[in-house]
């Protein structure tokens, strides 16, 4: 507001001059020399005299670039070019402006002082995000992601080059971009969601956030961005038939997760809990992909190995890699207090009878249970049980996990909850079936115990269905899921083949038989 009179014209004139500087075929070295001359001209025009003026200059310039692109897109819509649009013309304004911004950032203050540089970077990122959100609001379905995508990506590439002046502040630069990407995340700017994923999944961004940033300090920020994406996708993924726009974003997300599974499996191991908490429960394959990750230095025994002794594996007693704050899995509340009291004393029994009402959600047509609370409760109670068993010098098996406060709670889910509540509970357990570690071991025993001790065949069928739906989808399948299912159909103690539902349909029976053949 209240731009000084003439600033708009002055800014446009400066931008035009700058673009002419770039148009002449210059080498990088010559551009930098010309930039210093240009800086002097900006100074004479008072652009650099105050923080406020630079902000105004950036905002007017950014808006100018955005308007340019809109105008070119509108022209091409009116008179579609015969040989298809030459995308290059959409980029010129944005690229030349960002070149100017990058040189300003790198040359502001002496090389050893990052603060003014970072202030400028955050300023321009804030302006791009602000213009984007305002435009998104005003243009509605006519919003165009292209200019913002171009401004943000080219700025990142410029800030990501290996130059000494940038090396010292790479982490702050990355933080600034992650922060901006959160501000314009898909649930806030759905019209920008495809470009957003392009930036988040860009090889240069992946390289910086996953590989170049030391001590994996970028991983937490990246996991937050992915969770933003899962949360946006959630309501659209509940239907088996996905609309084309959703399918495109979903498959794009799968690709990014596949690249992470292939190159950074430890990242998926560390953040699997938060991801599976945000991915809708019926998104089987995406969740399997995340749960299939295992540390690269680990060798997984073939689950189909005859007489595989899981409890003799070296890693089976080690806790898994995971970035989880177990203390905050369940928000502090009276329920948490009652839970801890019950785990400590296995009384009062009212805790069990009131469990369902504590987990039910009443005023939300989309769901009947607090899925996140179930996930947190299962993991919290399970880890307490593992610690208790370990404290007794034992390892999880059908007898050591039985008759405990922990198992009371789990069995309560199977007897007192309806089909949907049980499904979410069984999912929460199956989400812990990953590579060989103490959680996989305990929760695998847990599932088999609940099957063996079930008070109705319906529960046994539901456990089988939940395992089956995770196995019949295309690969990959988590190791812990496979060994649990194989144990269930192989070990006569579970009398698996005696159940009616195993023979409920020829193809189902054939599938069980084929799995049985391959492992016996």
């Amino acid at each position, binding site marked *: 507001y209240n731009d000084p009179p003439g600033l708009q014209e002055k800014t446009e004139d400066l931008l035009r001059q700058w673009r002419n500087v770039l148009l002449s075929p210059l080498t990088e070295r010559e551009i930098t020399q010309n930039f210093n001359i240009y800086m002097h001209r900006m100074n004479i025009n008072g652009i650099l005299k105050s923080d406020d003026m630079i902000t105004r200059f950036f905002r007017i310039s950014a808006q100018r670039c955005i308007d340019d692109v809109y105008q070119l897109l509108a022209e091409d819509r009116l008179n579609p070019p015969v040989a298809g649009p030459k*995308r290059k013309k959409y980029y010129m304004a944005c690229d030349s402006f960002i070149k100017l911004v990058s040189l300003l950032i790198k040359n502001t203050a002496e090389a050893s002082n990052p603060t003014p540089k970072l202030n400028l970077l955050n300023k321009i990122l804030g302006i791009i995000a602000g213009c984007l959100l305002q435009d998104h609001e005003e243009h509605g379905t006519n919003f165009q992601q292209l200019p913002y995508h171009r401004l943000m990506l080219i700025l990142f590439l410029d800030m990501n080059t290996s130059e000494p002046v940038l090396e010292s502040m790479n982490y702050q630069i990355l933080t600034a971009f992650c922060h901006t990407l959160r501000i314009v995340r898909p649930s806030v700017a759905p019209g920008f969601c495809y470009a957003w994923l392009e930036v988040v999944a860009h090889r240069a961004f992946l390289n910086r956030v996953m590989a170049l940033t030391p001590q994996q300090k970028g991983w937490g920020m990246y996991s937050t961005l992915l969770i933003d994406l899962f949360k946006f996708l959630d309501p*659209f993924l*509940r239907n088996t038939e996905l609309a084309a726009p959703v399918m495109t974003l979903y498959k794009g997300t799968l690709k990014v997760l596949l690249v992470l599974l292939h190159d950074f499996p430890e990242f998926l191991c560390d953040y699997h809990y938060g991801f599976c908490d945000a991915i809708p429960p019926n998104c089987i394959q995406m969740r399997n992909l995340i749960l299939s990750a295992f540390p690269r230095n680990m060798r997984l025994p073939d689950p189909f190995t005859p007489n595989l002794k899981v409890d003799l594996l070296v890693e089976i007693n080690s806790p898994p890699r995971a970035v989880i704050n177990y203390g905050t899995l369940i928000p502090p509340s009276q329920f948490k207090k009652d839970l801890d009291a019950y785990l400590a004393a296995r009384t009062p029994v009212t805790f069990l009878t009131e469990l369902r009402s504590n987990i039910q959600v009443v005023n939300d*047509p989309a769901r009947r249970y607090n899925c996140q609370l179930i996930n947190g409760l299962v993991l919290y109670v399970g880890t307490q049980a593992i610690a208790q068993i370990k404290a007794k010098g034992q390892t999880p098996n059908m007898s050591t996990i039985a008759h405990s406060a922990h198992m009371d709670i789990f069995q309560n889910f199977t007897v007192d909850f309806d089909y949907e509540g049980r499904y979410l509970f069984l999912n929460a357990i199956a989400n812990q079936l990953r590579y060989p570690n103490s959680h996989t071991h305990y929760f695998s025993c847990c599932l088999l115990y609940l099957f063996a001790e079930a008070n109705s065949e319906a529960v046994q069928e539901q456990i089988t269905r939940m395992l089956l739906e995770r196995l019949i989808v295309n690969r990959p399948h988590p190791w812990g899921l496979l060994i649990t299912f194989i144990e269930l159909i192989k070990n006569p103690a579970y009398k698996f083949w005696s159940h009616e539902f195993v023979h409920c349909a020829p193809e189902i029976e054939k599938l069980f038989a084929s799995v049985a053949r391959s492992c016996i």
Partner: protein
Amino acid sequence: PLGPLPLNTDHQSQFTMMEAAFYHMPHASDSERMRVYLPKNICQTPAYYNQVLLPHSDTVEFFQRLSTETLFFVFYYMEGTKAQYLAAKALKKQSWRFHTKYMMWFQRHEEPKVINEEYEQGTYIYFDYEKWGQRKKEGFTFEYKYLE
């Protein structure tokens, strides 16, 4: 049990915006720096054409099997990319040297007995921007000291 879910108004409006953006999907070149000559422009080719990258096509060995003309084409038309870098490496393995001062390539006719300030005989070629093509520089003597 988690059957289809009616979208609430908030999600419905999000879907509308997403759907609109779906008709303006990012183009492959939107995420790449501007290429002066050959911008990334994916076009559908008949299925019997190579649809995936030739294996090891990003190695010097692969580029060494390309013709000299192809290597020079890649060098001049794909500047700033890994292809240019690999083409330059492959050319050097064919004993071409890039003359940084005159921005031209030089290939000795024979390996010199001794390398000194003497002038060397060789083939000198440069890129003629006016005629937009590669040219031999006749009668040019070579100032060894600028050799890259």
